[in-house]
């Protein structure tokens, strides 16, 4: 089944890419007071059990997909993903 991990720079962590994107949006005339850029990883997990998929994604995120020093992550499984 399909599952998705959304990885974000932790609150308070400087995000130069997000700042550049925010600046560009303001330059285009959008009323924007901030932007943060993260990462999205779609994973096709070999299981039909949502709980199992979620647990697997949680391990993947801790081990590889996110760096806990600077990033937080949320997991979406199945219909939500």
């Amino acid at each position, binding site marked *: 089944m399909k599952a998705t991990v959304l990885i974000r720079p932790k609150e308070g962590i400087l995000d130069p890419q997000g700042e550049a994107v925010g600046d560009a949006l303001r330059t285009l005339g959008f009323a924007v007071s901030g932007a943060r850029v993260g990462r999205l990883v779609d994973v096709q997990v070999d299981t039909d059990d949502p709980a199992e998929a979620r647990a697997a994604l949680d391990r993947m995120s801790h081990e590889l997909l996110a*760096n806990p020093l600077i990033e937080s992550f949320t997991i979406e499984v199945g219909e939500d993903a």
Partner: protein
Amino acid sequence: MSDAARIAVVTFPGSNDDGDAALALELLGAVPVRAWHADLELPEGTEGVVLPGGFSYGDYLRCGAIARFAPVMEAVAAVAASGRPVLGICNGFQILCEAGLLPGVLRPNRQQRFVCRDVTVTVESTSSAFAGGWEVGQVLVIPVKHGEGSWYGDPDLLGELEARGQVALRYAEDVNGAVGRIAGVTNEAGNVLGLMPHPEHAVDPLLGPTGGVPVLRGLIEAALTPVLPG
């Protein structure tokens, strides 16, 4: 120093400073031996390790995040645990941080630009195995070339590193937004050093500054006289 130090230089897919690292070590009297990311063991008689600069695995996901799972990394971790020296340069530094062998993480440069120039770094601590020939306050000019070299650790971590003398090298000016202007840090035991500047590019006066010599000599001397846990 009867025998020359045998230093393994590890090549990952995307490494591009492995050749220069080997040449520089040879110039300074060591014997570089090449290792491949898929090797399960380092060459026999390895006394020290260099993880060179480059863009291992295309810098996918985060710099160094995938290389840390390369088969050779277990052997590198074993060298680190044995007390023998491990030096990570640029991408090698990123890999060692991702692998948890060094504290903190390297992030995109504050200025969102690749920085490629000679920088001045100052020796901040001589408590590591690499610092036999260093003096606190010593100034080294070494080139940097990186887009993601901004070292980050939270204030607590930074305080601990400063207190324990693990901040080995500091930029004289702000180069990339690194917390504490950190250019190089060591592990607590002092036998693993990572730095963003490229000492292997700064060993020959014909080609520019020679600030890399004390760094690589430090590695070579640490390889010949390792502080092995008793």
